[in-house]
Each structure stands twice: as C-alpha cells, then as structure tokens.
C-alpha cells in the first residue's frame, strides 16, 4: 500500500496543472494563487509534502478536498456504497450469465450452440462499456421505459432498479473472459472418468453439468472472477460516468481533472485496498471449495 500511495503522490505532482488555478479561475492574480497553494502546503518542497502525506496517512488522516473543502473521508463515505453496490450487482450478473452460457457451450462442444456462445464472447470483448451502456439505455429506458436512464434512484427499490443497467453493462465487460474460462474448465472435467461414471450411474445431464462439472470447473473461474472483479472496480470510472452514478470512480475522474490531490490520493488507496481485499476473499473461497488448496 505504501508503494501505491507513493506512486500516486509522485505521479500527481509530476503531472502539470495547478490546483489553485483550477479553483480560482482565470481572473486569479498570481498572489492569490500563491496564497492558496501556500495554505495547502503546495509551496513546500516535494519531499516535505511527501513526508507529511505519509505521516498523515499513518494517522489515517486523509485531509480535505481542495475543491469543496469537505473532508475526504466524508466524500468517500458518501460514495463508496454506490460503487460497492455497482460492483456487487455486476458480479452477480456476471455469474448468472456466465454459468449457463458456459454449460451450454461445453455440453454442445463444436456444435451450433458452442459456436454461438464463443462468437458472442468474441463480440462481447469488442464492445466498449460506454457504447453498450448507451444502447441499453436507449432500448430499456428511453423506448421501453422499463428502467431509469441514469442516476442513483431513491429508496431501496429505486436504487436497485437504477443499478440494473449499469450492473449489466459492467458485467458484460468481463463475461466473455469468464465464459471462455469456465467452458474450457468444464470441457476438461467433462472428459474426466468420474463424469462418465456418474452418467453411467444414470444421473441426468443437467445435474451432472451443474452439480459436478461446473463445481469442479469453478476453481480456475473463481480465480479469474476475483481478478476481474478488481477490473470491475476500475471500470466503474466509465460505467458511473455513462449512467450518472456519482460513485467513487466518477469522483476520481472529477478529482483528477481538478487536480484535487487529497481526493485522488485517497480514492486510489481505497481502490487498491479493495482489490487486495477481493483477491484475499477469492483465495479464501477457493480454499474452502477445494480442500487441495491450503493457505500457508
């Protein structure tokens, strides 16, 4: 985490752009710009600023936003739920779409269904999230009026409703990879002796596929899912922008533009932490599913 914090700090300060100028506007005098930079400590040496930043971080002080003056913690607290909900829904969608598609493809190897699923995967990989999002909004929100165009909605039902299209959009970005991975995993398991034995014992094809084949093929897919959830966290920057969800990703984008250093630094850390946490949870779940995996 210290590496992430240091890299973010140094990169932000290396990029041209003056936060005080961004806030004070074009009419600002050099004196007022200098005064504001002084009040933020930006006129001190880079080393001094860095030491102070790391010191504050060690005491869990994230500082105040240059732009709004409010505490970074409160800005993040107001948005983290939005982003977490988006990532959560997208993950659920990804699993719900991936498992049946991979099962169909694997059980119909080299036949029309398989080719169709694989073709769709390739197509899905080539479709950028911002474009998919706009198409989904156009169809389901503007024409069919089934779902909101954007925004976070109000009330629990409204929030969930507002997350369907963004969640689906974010999920589609990782589904192709997951489908391909699960399909390959399933094919390997399908050729295993125990599957032939189960079929010989008269178990139905659906039960064999879902209960035994999918479960055994799940471990590599779960690892891939964990990695892709981390990717999902990053992709919220785009999905939140397209669907006007004021979450962490969107705030990050705004803050980079405004050179709001404390906010960018804090969000980057939160996102990095969340990626570490997701990977840890993935490993724990994998160990639980497969006794052969043991944490050392």
């Amino acid at each position, binding site marked *: 985490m210290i590496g992430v914090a240091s890299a973010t700090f140094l990169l932000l300060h290396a990029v041209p752009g003056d936060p005080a100028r961004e806030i004070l506007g074009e009419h600002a005098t050099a004196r*007022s710009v200098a005064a504001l930079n002084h009040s933020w400590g930006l006129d001190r040496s880079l080393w001094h600023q860095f030491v102070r930043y790391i010191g504050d971080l060690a005491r869990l002080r994230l500082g105040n936003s240059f732009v709004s003056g409010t505490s970074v913690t409160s800005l993040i607290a*107001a948005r983290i739920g939005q982003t977490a909900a988006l990532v959560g829904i997208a993950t659920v969608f990804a699993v719900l779409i991936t498992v049946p598609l991979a099962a169909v493809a694997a059980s119909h190897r080299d036949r029309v269904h398989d080719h169709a699923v694989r073709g769709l995967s390739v197509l899905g990989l080539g479709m950028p999230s911002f474009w998919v999002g706009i198409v989904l909004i156009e169809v389901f929100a503007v024409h069919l009026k089934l779902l909101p165009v*954007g925004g976070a909605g109000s009330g629990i039902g409204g929030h969930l409703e507002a997350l369907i299209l963004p969640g689906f959009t974010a999920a589609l970005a990782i589904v192709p990879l997951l489908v391909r991975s699960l399909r390959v995993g399933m094919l390997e398991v399908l050729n295993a002796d125990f599957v032939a034995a189960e079929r010989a014992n008269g178990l139905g094809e659906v039960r064999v596929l879902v209960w035994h084949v999918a479960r055994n093929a799940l471990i590599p897919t779960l690892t891939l899912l964990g990695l892709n959830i981390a990717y999902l966290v990053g992709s919220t920057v785009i999905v939140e922008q397209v669907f006007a969800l004021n979450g962490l990703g969107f705030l990050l984008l705004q803050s980079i533009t405004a050179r709001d250093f404390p906010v960018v630094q804090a969000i980057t850390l939160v996102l990095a932490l969340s990626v570490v946490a997701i990977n840890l949870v993935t490993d724990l779940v994998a160990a639980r599913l497969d006794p052969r995996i043991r944490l050392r």
Partner: protein
Amino acid sequence: MSIEPDQKITRRRLLRQGAAGSALLAAGPLLASSPARAAELRHTADARAAASIKKGGTLTFARSVAPTQLDPANSIIAGDVYTLDKIMEPLYVTSPAGALTPWLAESHTVSSDNLTWTFNLRKGVKFSNGNALTAKDVVFSIHRAATNKNGPLSFLDAAIKTIKASGSNQVVVKLSEPWAPFLSDISVFANAIIPANYGGVTEKAFFAKPVGTGPFVLNSFSPSSNLTLMPNRHYWQSGKPYVDKVQINYVSDDNQRVLQLQGGQAEIIDAVPPANVASLKATSGIDIGLFAAWEVDLLVFNEKLPYFADRHVRRAITHAIDREALVKATSFGTAKPGGSFFPPSLQYYAANTPLLNFSLSAAKAELAQSKYPHGFSTKLLISGGVQKWSEFAQVIQQALAPLNIKVAITALDHAAYEQAFQGFHYEMFIDYAINDISDPDEMASFEVDVKNGGSTSYWSSYDNPTAISLVHKAEAEFNDAKRADLYAQIQAIVAGDAPFVPLDYPPYIYGTTSKVNGFAVNPGGAYRLENVWLS
C-alpha cells in the same frame, strides 16, 4: 414589485412559436431597449401567465456541472455559481435580455462626481430564516466579497473605497475613482447578500446550510454531486417560486443528459451538444433553447514569439480562416461566426466593426508584407477531450496550409493546458473568453489591458497603448453614447491588430420537456428558477 418584461414573456412561449419565436429571442436586447414595447408585452404576458400558471411539482434538472460549495465570495465554477444564486441574491441582477434589473435594491442614485453611490433597499425582503434584510447585511456581504483575498471575482469590487449603512434601508458606497461599470460589478453573484456575521454562526457552518433572500433554500447537498432545493417560505416575490422542489443532478456525460431528457427523467438539461440539437428539436415533447451568451471562442497568438509579434502574420491568419465555414462544420447551425472580440449580446457591441473577413488573396497579401512571406511552422495548443476544440484546430490547420504555415496540434488535459498557456508555453491556443457581468469593461480590460487587465491581454501579450487608454476612458465615462463610441473604437483597433481571432459566438443550449414553462437564461449563463412552472 417589478419583474423585467422578458422574464414574463417566457422563452418557452417564444420557442414554441418557431421561427418567429427565434427572431424574437434574437431580438431580446432590442425588446429591453424599447420601453413602450416592453411594457405592452409585459401587460399581455402578465395576463396570460396569471391565467395559466400551475403550482407544484418537482423540477429535475440534469446539469453538466456539479456544485462543490456555496460561498458566493469564493466561487467561480458554474456548478457553484448557478446553484448559490437560487439561494442568495445581489442588489441588482442581469435579466435574460442582458439588462441590469433592481433586485434587493429598489433603486440607486449616483452623486454628481460619480463617486458616491446610494442604494435604496427593497422593503419587506426577508431572509429564509424569517429575519428582515437590513443595510447592515448588505455592508457585511459586499465588504466581505471585496476584501476576500482569494475571491476569484473580488477584483470587480476594487473601486470600492468605503461601504456604509445609512439607516436600516440604505447603503452608501464611496468609490476611489469614477467607475462606470460599478452597477454591473455590484450585480455579480459574488456580491450576493447574506446575514451580517453569518447570522451568528461560524462561516463554515453558515455555508453548509446558507441563508439568503433567494427563492429557494438548501434541502440536501452532497458536494460534487446532487443537490435539492425547497421553496423559501419568506421569499419576497409573493407566490413564487412555483415548483415545490428542485432536484439538481450532476450528470457530466453529454449522452446521459440527452437520454435523461428523452426518457423523461429530467425536465431541463444544460450544455446540449450541438450535434443533438436538430434531432431533439424534431422530438415531440422536447424543446431546445438557444440563449445568446457573453462568450467568444478565440484563437490566441503568443506575441512573445517573433512571427506572432508581426501584425501582418496575425492579420494574414485571420483572413485565412473562413469562420462561416468553421461554424457550419462544427456547430450544426447553433453558433454564429466570429467578428468583433465582443459578442453581439454584449453591451456596446459594434456591429459595424471593420473586420478582416475571409479572403485567401488578402491573407497571402498580408503574409507577403510580413517578415515571414514563405510561411513557418507552429504549434496549436488545445484542451484535450473537447470535441469542438479538436474540430476547430483541424479546420485552422487546413486553413493555414495555403499560406505555408504548418500547424502541429497539441492536446493537453485541461489543467495542464491552462498551466501551459498561462505560463506562455504555447505558440497559438484556442479558448473561450466570457464576460461575467453585463458591462463590457471586464472583457475589454482582460483582453486588451496588458498590464492591469489580469491576463496579459488574454495571455497574448498584445500591447496597444491607444486601445488601453480607450479602455480606461470608457471605465470613467458615464455618458452612454460616448461609452458606446469608445468601445466601438476599441473593437475596431483590436480587429485591425488581430491579437486573437474571434472564431465564433456559441450560445447556451438547453433542452427542456414541454412541461417546463418560464425558463430563461441570461447572457452570463445564469437562470432564475422562481419563474419556472410545470404544466
């Protein structure tokens, strides 16, 4: 109570009248300058409005800019400014037609030496906490704005020497020099009135839940995100505002805003992309408003470089750019081609300014007289991610090719771009110049007065002592006709010297659903929502 006529004649109604409406819209300033016609229209509009206005409902506004904080004296970004002005109001405001209108002040007088300005406050005005507005509040607020070291627009109050209350209903301002733009300066949002001493709370606590005399009060606010306003029960315009609630949502993505309008999720959206205007106009239930702005897109030359210090080079480039074609190619018919460095909506715009119109032969002739008759290579800096700038840059690149001026386009992210041009690390750059107040002095001094204007002549380093002297004369001239003449001279000089090429005059483009009535935007970009009602 007086409301300016153009607010009563809603732009919505004008827009619904199609071409005729557009013509009337374009003639907005003309209407205001004809008192008899204005009074007639006001009477008609009053009668119509009273009969049809519906109260209630939630107005959802999807905006491209986010409110970050609500302190008028420390604001400059549109998301803050166009939010706080619904809560806190100044003594005068600028109407949609661009005219100064008495607001919290009922009237004012100016002494014969033009140094003492006395403002008579409107009676019966209360803050949203129920306390009466007094002269003490006005003195506190304007003094605070004028002396705020970090105030982005505190320079507009620089002429104020003293400000004092005279009784509870009168404020006397003494200026350090005769200053003709003062009434415009006082109307800027930074001079909005708040209770003296923040009504007894700390500054920070006050601006977390500000109290003002405006039509709305803050209900909920998530900085850099969404905001809800509720009606101010003590608002001085009785019966207003008409809506029960205003929900301002931050929607930065252009497509999302347009789709929210089409999907009925937002009643008003701002910054409609010009490319969407025609299709939205053709959509039933949606109206598009083009509101003239005090805004000009400029191509600026760095005169610190030898080739741009050469007047002939600048004139040649100006002649070489076909602004009619540029506007056609990039604005989808929404903008007007650039001419004078004053936009047509700005006071004292001189329509007869002699311009360096498009002519390739004139461009070649000018270049032939320069020290660089065979052309040169240069760079054009733009802010990356702005589609329009990118298109402008490409058009300019092609336009200068026949002069053998080779242009390399450099796009930087906005903060880096600003730092580059403000540090003179550029050769040419494209930006938009705006005026915050109704008086043209801000634009004139900012773009012409190289030493005192605050921007080294819009970072061009352009220095024409005659033009600068005229700018100063106009600042101290109180005779309207003489001021108009001075500004006409300034515009002519600048057009001849060509320190920058005014590329186009873009309008503010808003989309509304047919439910929205009474929405209008002034040329400074501000819109008042107390007149808006939903049918």
